């Protein structure tokens, strides 16, 4: 098996196991608690407004927004890691059809694999640090995946004969 396929198949399988383990851990230990925190904060905010405790109400709504920010990203990370892993393995099966030299294919495989890991990681880190670095990491990972996939689509169009 050539290095590019090895990278995509091995890396993809490792990533899908990682994504599923993350999802299982999240469902067991985090998700229910986060959903209760979200629902509780929103309901409390409205109830406090009904009691005319407006400062408390706004604080509860802010807590709801914070919990929702985390929840959306954590669920996104699980689905993106899993989805990208399936894509990597799928491309790995057909990577011989990409019409570039094996060296270029290996570089593309490395870009796709690193982008697929870094993009959700950057999104996940935003729940810990809302600063610029996690956003840049996520954007760079997404750019690597988009560039890599665009190049693969072009390679498929060229056909395997062009890579020989």
């Amino acid at each position, binding site marked *: 098996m050539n290095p590019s396929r090895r990278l995509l*198949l091995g890396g993809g399988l490792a990533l899908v196991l990682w994504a599923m383990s993350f999802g299982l851990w999240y469902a067991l230990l985090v998700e229910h608690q986060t959903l209760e925190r979200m629902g509780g904060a929103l309901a409390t905010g409205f109830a406090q407004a009904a009691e005319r405790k407006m400062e408390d109400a706004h604080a509860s709504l802010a807590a709801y927004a914070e919990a929702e920010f985390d929840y959306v990203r954590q669920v996104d990370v699980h689905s993106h890691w899993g989805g990208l892993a399936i894509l990597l393995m799928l491309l790995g099966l057909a990577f011989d059809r990409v019409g570039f030299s094996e060296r270029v294919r290996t570089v593309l495989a490395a870009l796709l694999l690193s982008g697929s890991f870094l993009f959700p990681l950057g999104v996940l880190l935003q729940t810990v640090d809302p600063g610029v670095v996690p956003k840049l990491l996520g954007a760079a990972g997404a750019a690597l995946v*988009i560039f890599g996939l665009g190049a693969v689509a072009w390679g498929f169009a060229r056909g395997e004969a062009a890579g020989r």
Partner: protein
Amino acid sequence: MTSRPVADQGFASLSARRLLVMGGIALIAAGMLLGDLFAVFVLHQNAARIGQHLLAATDAVAAEDPQAVLQNFTAIGARLENRGTKVDAHAHSIAFGYLALLLALAQPYFVMTESVRRRLAQLFLAGAVLLPVSVFLIHYVGLEYSPLESIGWASLAADFGGFLVIAACAGYGIGLVRQLRGGESADDPLLRDRSPSARLLLAGGTLLILAGFLHGGYYAAAHLLEHEQRESRILATLVERAAQKDTAAAHQAVADYGQLQGEKAVAIAAHSHIIEFGLLAILMAFLQPYVMLSARWKNRWAALLLIGSVVLPVFVLAELRFGLVAGGIADVGGLLVIVALLGMLAGVVRYTGSLDAGRTAS
């Protein structure tokens, strides 16, 4: 002309590959059918009731009635759980279907005996069915007889299903590591198919995924944060106006909140569906040699799958501007994909029948 059996090795009756191909297509078709039924019969009705409860909670704020507020939010929570668990069951059934097809394709890369492959396939399919079915039941089972404070038996069963899937994938992972260490090349006639339907699905699928990535990147950069900030502003306005007994402004804020939830939902649904359909198209491209139909019918099913794959996300996005008419067309798009998938499944069933009949005769 009908395609003849190729690559029958590894596709014998009850082989791992056959189990995964048949199970995978069935999981995808079942997941999509659930999604279509949910979109037609539950989604909008459920959203309307959530809106009514939010409106009632807003009125309860104006009436200084915190008890009524909490009652309405309990009702909203139940409605959200009803929606969330059905969306999760739909998404996981389809995702496991894709993974099953992928594992079926990758069988030659797993160095292990056929009986181990078959047991892992059975384990995978058991978990892949148990998880979405259990998630679907979460809303109905609730916390009845549960030993835990916030997790019911259906959730625990779903988590166990997820564990079975992970265990099966880890088992196949060991086989893949053996293959990678051995450095042998696993040749598979399936991956050499260059039929027009396979090429159409491969090219179309790659383009669909690329379009989905670009749309997702655009949404994340241009709308995600703005939507979250707008939601905070609307909720703050809503409670302020309700506390000031400005009913008209509070009701307008509830309407704005509903509109925003709609904007978020269609953007996410379009993004995820176009990518998933792209993956499906590529997977089905590789499985074309197992679709025992004439070339013309294979091309028709491939084209239908791609047409549905474009129609659904495009018209989901158009729902905001054109309302339920666009939603109906999107549902038809989903139906086209299901019909194409069932057409291909019929071809796979013909293939297995032909293979088994040949074996019996010999």
